[in-house]
């Protein structure tokens, strides 16, 4: 086991709505990222994945729980104390254009984080800016351009260059490719993989798209309505998802292959609102394989197979295999 870059322990974030109603955006989430490791946090809307990212960056204050960054408890710090940590935890945004100041040239956009970190002379900073542009596959020609003169993919490359400018230990990527076209998306994913391997950043890759994270991340944590339902090595989750929700997510991926022979596994109904999470396992009203226990209690996230943690009563009862036996409630998932 490598050195921990980040450790998130029982993180809770509730947003009060007044009249005693709360959005339970994140409800007891624990995970860790080793140095130089890429972890994907995958979930659909309302899963709380973005809220987790914002808590880690201290953009919002967690309700409960602890976040430890390279051994230091950052939740106990004041914003002022946390400031020096900021250059070590950086963020890449979803909308590349919206995240760049339209009135700054690219050179200045990349110079800003260096200036704030005030570690070098203007000349040294300029050399670093050129080096950054080179690292993300853009040349010196981009120095004097404005964001609107760049394509979406180029803008996102600038966003990535800015994030890695101060040599952070952790880069939080919040849906970095979902605003991009497919052919550009593949290029950006390749770039992210490449940078991580060369420079050894730890990544927290937040996404709703399992296929995007597959190429970049070694491990995946899948979230549903504020909780992690399954974690494990990427390859193993792709080969055999254990939680019914993971299975449904994977089954929803439409591969560009008309003779795809995978069997389908669809969930019924809509994703409930995080204001009104179902009692028991949050998935049970949509899960075709729910058993009696599921409506009563929330299943614990337990290691059922080596390296694989799953929160599912059925999987637990059957040593990791969340598939109904003949005596289970329903045999075949609906279409």
């Amino acid at each position, binding site marked *: 086991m490598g050195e921990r870059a980040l450790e998130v322990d029982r993180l809770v974030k509730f947003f009060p709505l007044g009249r005693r109603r709360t959005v339970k955006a994140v409800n007891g989430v624990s995970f860790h990222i080793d140095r130089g490791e890429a972890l994907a946090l995958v979930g659909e809307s309302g899963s709380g994945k973005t809220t987790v990212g914002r808590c880690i960056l201290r953009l919002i204050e967690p309700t409960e729980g602890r976040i430890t960054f390279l051994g230091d408890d950052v939740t106990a710090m004041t914003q002022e104390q946390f400031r020096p940590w900021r250059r070590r935890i950086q963020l890449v945004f979803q909308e590349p254009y919206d995240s760049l100041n339209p009135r700054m040239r690219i050179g200045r956009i990349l110079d800003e984080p260096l200036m704030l970190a005030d570690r070098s002379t203007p000349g040294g900073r300029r050399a670093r800016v050129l080096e950054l542009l080179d690292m993300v596959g853009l040349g010196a020609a981009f120095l004097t351009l404005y964001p609107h003169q760049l394509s979406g993919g180029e803008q996102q490359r600038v966003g990535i260059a800015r994030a890695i400018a101060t040599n952070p230990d952790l880069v939080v990527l919040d849906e970095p490719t979902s605003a991009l*076209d*497919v052919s550009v998306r593949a290029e950006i994913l*390749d770039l992210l993989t490449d940078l991580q391997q060369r420079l050894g950043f730890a990544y927290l890759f937040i996404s709703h798209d399992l296929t995007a994270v597959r*190429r970049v991340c070694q491990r995946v944590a899948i979230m549903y309505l504020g909780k992690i339902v399954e974690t494990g090595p990427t390859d193993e989750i792709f080969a055999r998802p254990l939680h019914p929700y993971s299975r449904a997510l994977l089954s929803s991926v439409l591969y560009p292959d*008309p003779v795809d022979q*995978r069997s389908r596994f669809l969930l019924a109904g*809509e994703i409930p609102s995080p204001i009104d999470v179902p009692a028991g396992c949050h998935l049970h009203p949509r899960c075709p394989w729910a058993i009696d226990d599921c409506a009563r209690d929330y299943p614990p996230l337990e290691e059922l197979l080596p390296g694989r943690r799953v929160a599912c009563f059925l999987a637990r009862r059957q040593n990791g295999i969340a598939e109904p036996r003949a005596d289970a409630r329903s045999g075949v998932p609906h279409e």
Partner: protein
Amino acid sequence: MRSWATGSATTSTLPIGNSVDALLEVKDLHVDYLRDAGPVRVLNGVDLTVYPGESLGVVGESGVGKTVLVRAILGLLQPPWRVTRGQVLYEGDELLRQSEKELRTIRGRGIALTTHEPRKHLNPVSTIGAQIANVVRAHATVGHAKARERVLELLGRVGFPDPEARLTAYPHELSGGMCQRVIIAMALAHSPKLLMADEPTAGLDVTISLQVLDLMRGLVRDANSSLLLVSRDLGVVAHYCQRVAVMYQGRIVESAGVQTFFERATHPYSRRLLRAATAARDEGRGATTSAGPRVAAAVVGCAYTPRCPVRVERCATEPPALEPVAAGHLVRCFLGAEIAAGRVTV
């Protein structure tokens, strides 16, 4: 358990050639966007045919003119957009020459459209029931009670478990997936012969996307209508369409049966799209090349020339025609036959 293969349409029943009359034919359609600095050509000679009962997927990345195309077909473009050339034939009738009044009889009844961002296309201050009832009454003189009955039936058909309860709901009370279902209910209110679905799953969660696509396919199939599905997602097209047409910079660059396309895509741009899309599935890293320079607005020859790895001299100066490389497989590329035969590798 059902497999993907039996779920998606078979290609054997495809009408190829002139054996069946086309339901919709778009010929050489040109659309300009007028600016002070001069017009920008957005559609640059689109040729497209939809046969009765088939589902055709129009694929392309953002900005290639997919949405402009479906809006031009229905005569919905307004200045600064202008159709400058071409024909849109629906059951043989030229739509571009029809008056607004004539077009209204076709919109919704002959051809219906579902839009992406469904919430934006619903009236925020009117109930779902009232909005669908409006659509129901647009083409039929029915009383209040009859219209209500029809609305309930439509809501049930698009999968609302309790239609009665939704009649008085406002769009903001519905999720994105439910708004898309409402739009589909409206589009199908008059059993159109052709449903054009513009990015029906954009902005929807993945587990909801499949529900919406399944629903749409089922409804179109039951009514024996045709589907023109506009998408940037090759996965969606692979599973929900029988034929594919690839759009690039305002032109169709390739069209083929879905099986043919995913086995033997021929145009260099189609190949690039396919490679990028399959990279998501295959563990290995995609053999993606750099996007290269963005394409200038006015291109004399093939618009893909600046990015094309196999371009030849004439590509930059002369536009290639959309020509068959096999039965039912059209490619707009000078090297199409060579690539299809494997003599040139892309």
